[in-house]
Structure formats: structure tokens, C-alpha cells
């Protein structure tokens, strides 16, 4: 597609650099004239939003790290010092804390968007797979970060999650001791968690570049799921999508600011403002909201090792999605049955989220097992079978044909 001629730079400094390393040409081609399908809807905003959330996290995190002390006796107090004595420290910390929720919300919407519109299908398998890996590293980063303030929930979440390795046959116990750097979560654990919490976001950042590289090679999917065929199917990224993304960013920042300034601890657990105490186990150990669905899957299995494996598989299975979905049609818009099952999966995911916050007892356990079973059934039974049985609707000839036919009014909104 990139048949646009390379730009001619008039600024001499830019010209000088560009001739030796065409970074400005690259940016021009990838961010300005980059041909994006003309019919992307607002669900396509969440990728760039997630990227901005990542940048906000990295910036606020670097400032937090200037005052944070990764030591079991000082970590909790150092956070209080940031909140009380560092100029605008409370602001930086609340931005960091709440942007995590924004980040996960964006990424979840981004992932489910991909599932609905079949964005994982050929030739975008690698693009999708890199995304799944990014999500996995995010999970790790957020878990590590949550341990840093060294409150009660930090400590006990760290204990619960790290002991997940203990049921691994033969090496489990030793592995746990190796992870902890001791015989339980201790100062060494906190220090290595801080080190890794600083490292992982950089890894995510690098992965995001691979993700974008793959994206700009295959180009964006779109609500119709038909490939871009001619120039009339596209719009230059700038100003069309830069403006649309900017507007979406504005909306997201309003939501973020609301929480940062008026309900900064809304997503936090009150008990995490009690300093970690290895002698006192909290009544309920509940992870952050964004981990709840997977926590529910973990607890659905009576066997500890089985639970761990299943939890891991519940994300890893996304990697196999391009091959599990046997339908030739990409977008859910032309798949009348799939549409239903997609929304059932979303509901199932929400139920799992809710169950993750409930105590693992009585009816909750049974519900958790059914919801987990359905989750896996969606991927390994329903999706493969749908491809065979479903009678799909006719797919339009091209994007521009659909747009001019008014077929796709909403998509171009």
C-alpha cells in the first residue's frame, strides 16, 4: 500500500539526519500518511489508549521510584512520605495507581474487540500473539507493582501467588524458595520484585513496537473484516485517526481524572493501608479487579496444581485462537450465530470477574466451575464447530463499496 512517494524535507537539520537514518521518513510514512481503513469505529481507539496509558505509567513510575524505598521496614513509610511530603507526590502516586485500571480496561476492550471482529485471523496471527504476550507481561508487572507498597494485601497476594508454584511436582518447593530468596515472602522478595517491576514495563514497551511493526505490515482489520483493496478504502492516519484518537484520549482522561482527584482509592483495598504483617492473615485475600476472572478460574479447580494449569491455559488459549476459529468469515458482523456466542463469552467473563471477588464457598464454587467450563467450551468446542455449521451473511465486496452503499453507516461514525 505504501505507494506514497517519500517526503521531501525542507528543514536542513531534518534533511541531514534523514539522509543518514530515515527516521523522519519512517515517522511520516507510519504516522502521517499511513493508510488506515476508512471505516474504523470507536472500538479501534483502545489500542492507542492502552499505549498512552503505558507511557503515563512509565513516567509516573519513574518519579515514584525516586522516592520509593524497596525495603520491608521502609517501603510502606516511603509511600506515605511520597503522599505527604513530596511535592505533588500524592498526584503522581494516584495517577500511577489509577492508570493501571485504565490500562487494563483498555486492553480488555482491545482484546474483546479483536475477538468480535476476527482480528486474529490470517494474516494477523503474529500481531495477535504478540498482543497476548504483552497482556501476560502486563499481568506480571501489575502483580509485582501491587506488592511494592508493602501493605497487608501486597504481602498476602505475594504469598498466595508465589506459592502457586509449590504444587509443581519435584521442584515446586525449591522453586518457591528460589523465587522468594528465603523461606517465605521477605525483604529479598520485595527487592527483586521492585527490580523486575522496573524492568517489565520496558519489555512491554519493546513488545509494543513489535506489535506495531506487525500491525503496519498487515494493516488494520476493520469492522467489515474485508481487506483493504484500493486507495478509496482508506484514509491517511493523519489527520483522520490522530484526531479521532485525540478525542478518545480526552474522554479517557476525563474518566481517569475523576478517579485520581475524587475517588483515588476506589480500586484499592482499604486493608492495603495497613502495613504488611506476616503474623496476621487478612480475612479475605482478594486480587485487584483486573485479575478476578482468572482468580475465579484458579479457584474453580479443587486441585491446586490443576487450578494453576487451568488459569495459565485460560490465557494461553488465546494464542491458539487463529486456529480454533474455523470460520472463513472474519467479522462477527456477518456471523449471526457467532455474535450470540461472543456476547455469551463476555457475560461469562463478567460472571467470572464477579465470582473472583466472592469467597470460595457454597454455591459460588459450583458457579465458578460452570463459568470456567463454559469459558473453555467457547474456545475448544463452540468456535471450531461454528465454523462448520454457521450460515454466514454475504460479505461486501470492499470497504468503499459498503460505505457508499450506506451499508456501513455506523462504522464510519
Amino acid at each position, binding site marked *: 500500500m505504501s505507494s506514497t512517494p517519500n517526503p521531501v524535507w525542507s528543514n536542513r537539520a531534518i534533511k541531514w539526519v534523514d539522509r543518514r537514518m530515515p527516521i523522519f521518513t519512517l515517522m511520516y510514512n507510519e504516522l502521517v500518511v499511513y493508510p488506515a481503513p476508512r471505516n474504523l469505529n470507536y472500538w479501534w481507539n483502545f489500542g492507542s489508549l492502552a499505549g498512552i496509558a503505558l507511557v503515563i505509567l512509565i513516567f509516573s513510575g519513574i518519579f515514584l521510584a525516586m522516592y520509593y524505598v524497596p525495603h520491608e521496614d521502609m517501603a510502606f513509610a516511603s509511600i506515605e512520605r511520597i503522599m*505527604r511530603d513530596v511535592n505533588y507526590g500524592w498526584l503522581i502516586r494516584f495517577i500511577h495507581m489509577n492508570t493501571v485500571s485504565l490500562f487494563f480496561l483498555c486492553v480488555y*476492550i482491545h482484546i474483546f474487540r479483536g475477538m468480535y471482529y476476527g482480528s486474529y485471523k490470517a494474516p494477523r496471527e503474529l500481531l495477535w500473539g504478540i498482543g497476548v504476550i504483552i497482556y501476560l507481561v502486563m499481568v506480571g508487572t501489575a502483580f509485582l507493582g501491587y506488592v511494592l507498597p508493602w501493605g497487608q494485601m501486597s504481602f498476602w497476594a505475594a504469598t498466595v501467588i508465589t506459592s502457586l508454584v509449590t504444587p509443581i511436582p519435584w521442584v515446586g518447593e525449591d522453586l518457591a524458595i528460589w523465587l522468594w530468596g528465603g523461606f517465605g515472602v521477605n525483604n529479598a522478595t520485595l527487592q527483586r520484585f521492585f527490580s523486575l517491576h522496573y524492568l517489565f514495563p520496558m519489555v512491554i514497551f519493546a513488545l509494543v513496537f513489535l506489535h506495531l511493526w506487525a500491525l503496519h505490515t498487515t494493516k488494520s482489520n476493520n469492522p467489515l473484516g474485508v481487506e483493504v483493496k484500493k486507495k478509496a478504502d482508506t484514509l491517511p492516519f493523519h489527520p483522520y485517526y490522530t484526531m479521532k484518537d485525540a*478525542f478518545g484520549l480526552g474522554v479517557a482522561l476525563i474518566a481517569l481524572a475523576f478517579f485520581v482527584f475524587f475517588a483515588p482509592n476506589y480500586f484499592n483495598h482499604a486493608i492495603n493501608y495497613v502495613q504488611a504483617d506476616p503474623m496476621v492473615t487478612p480475612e479475605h485475600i482478594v486480587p485487584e479487579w483486573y485479575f478476578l476472572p482468572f482468580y475465579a478460574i484458579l479457584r474453580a479447580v479443587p486441585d491446586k496444581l490443576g487450578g494453576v494449569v487451568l488459569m495459565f491455559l485460560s490465557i494461553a488459549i488465546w494464542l491458539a485462537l487463529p486456529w480454533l476459529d474455523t470460520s472463513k468469515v472474519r467479522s462477527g458482523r456477518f456471523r449471526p450465530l457467532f455474535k450470540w456466542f461472543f456476547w455469551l463469552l463476555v457475560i461469562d467473563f463478567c460472571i467470572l470477574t464477579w465470582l473472583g471477588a466472592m469467597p470460595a464457598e457454597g454455591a459460588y464454587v459450583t458457579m465458578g466451575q460452570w463459568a470456567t467450563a463454559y469459558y473453555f467450551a467457547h474456545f475448544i468446542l463452540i468456535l471450531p464447530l461454528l465454523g462448520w455449521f454457521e450460515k454466514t451473511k454475504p460479505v461486501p465486496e470492499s470497504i468503499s463499496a459498503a460505505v457508499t452503499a450506506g451499508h456501513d453507516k455506523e462504522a464510519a461514525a
Partner: protein
Amino acid sequence: MKTLIRISTAAALAAGLSLGGTAAQAAGGHGGPELMHPSWSFEGIYGRYNEDQLKRGWEVYAQVCASCHPLDYMHYRNLEGLGYTEDEVKEIAAQFEVRDGPDEWGEMFTRPATPPDAFAEPYENDALAKLANGGVVPPNLSVMTRARDGGADYVYSLMLGYEGGVPEWVHEEDPDFALPPGKSFNAYFPGYAISMPEQLFEGAVTYSDGTEATPEQMAKDVTAFLQWAAEPELEDRKELGRYTLLFLIVFTGVLYAYKREIWKDAH
């Protein structure tokens, strides 16, 4: 626009879900009556502290709670945030003794506190604190309203939640309930048996502004003070928040108009 509405519904749904989670935690296990909810001046997006109330609350803390509970992470200089002048803070600080040293003879000594000093600790160490309080260390109060579900409402209710004996409804909940020796009954404390005896009796403090020291008055004042101790940034935060939100809403409106202008011909 339709899509926008759908997106916000999705966001609201996600928020609602996590709310469900938080509520479930708050409900976590223990019964007891619902928390009392007096009206707080610091609530809402225009919330502010009331300096007179904070000063009274400080008097309650200093005259009653300070003998058992520390205010970690805070310094006497912070009291200027209550509206005291620099000189008043110096005077207040001088009423407390802090440990310092070693001096040139290698000895630790005590001296009157100065504004940069951290608040004096009530006990030299946890063992002493436990010894004096039936085996429990009185917790730090400077993050208390952040550290309990229910926040200020919880602290307020707790201060007023004492009963002379064990009320009937507890036995209906748990026929075997018995108050261990040395503990007091408090309707709002998880498990009802608390190691802190009732504190706020009629006239327990003498307010310097002449306000009558009823238990409700003292509970409200000391809770407001503790809320301030936990969130000294609250007023700045809300003010900055109002400007930021206003700016973002206007700016996003402009972006939307501009976006429509650009997209006008692309449809």
C-alpha cells in the same frame, strides 16, 4: 455517537463490576448494625475541611488518644494545616517530649519537641504498648480512615459503638458469644470484642472554643481530624481536580468538534 454510548456503557459496566467486588469485601463476613453516616464537610467534589472542627479534633486526639495511639509519618509542623500559626505550633510542640541523642556524653535524653520533629510515640516499643493494652498494640491513627472500609463513618461509629453489656441481637446472631475478660463490647468492631475501652465520655475533653464536649461532638471532631491526618492533600486534590476536569471537558468538546469537522467529508 451511538458507539460512544456503547463504549461508556462498557466502561460503566466494568466499573460496576469492580464496585460489586468492593461492596462484597465491605460486607465481608461480620454482621452488626450499619455504619452511622453523619454529614462530613469534606465529602463531595467541593469538600473542604472545617478548621475549627479540625482544631477541636486535634484537642480530642491530644487529650485522649495520644496516650495510646501514635500518628506516624506526621510532624508537628503539619499542624499548621489546621490553621494554627507558626508560633502556636511551636507552643503546641513544646508541650510534648521527644527522645533525642546521643549527646556528647553518649547519653540519650528527652527534650521538648519542635515543629520539625515527628509526633512523639506513646510507647517506647511494641512490647510496652502490648503490656499496657491487654496484649494488643494500639494501631497508628494517621492512615486509619484510609485503612478501614467505611473510612470516616467507620471511625465515627466505632467511637460511639460501645455498649455496657452484650446486647440481645448478638446472641441471636451467635448464641455462644461471650465477651473475653479485659475486652469491651463494640457493635461496629469486627467480632465485637475490642481491646480499646470506651473513650469518649461526656466532657472527656475541654474544648478551647467552649463547644460542649458531648460524645457525638468529640467523635465527629476527632474523626474529621483523623481524616485530615490521613488525607492532608484532600483540599488541594479536589480543587486541582475541579479545574482539571473542567479543562478536560471543554478541551475534549473542542476535540470532538474538530474531529467532526475533519471527518465531515470522509463519510
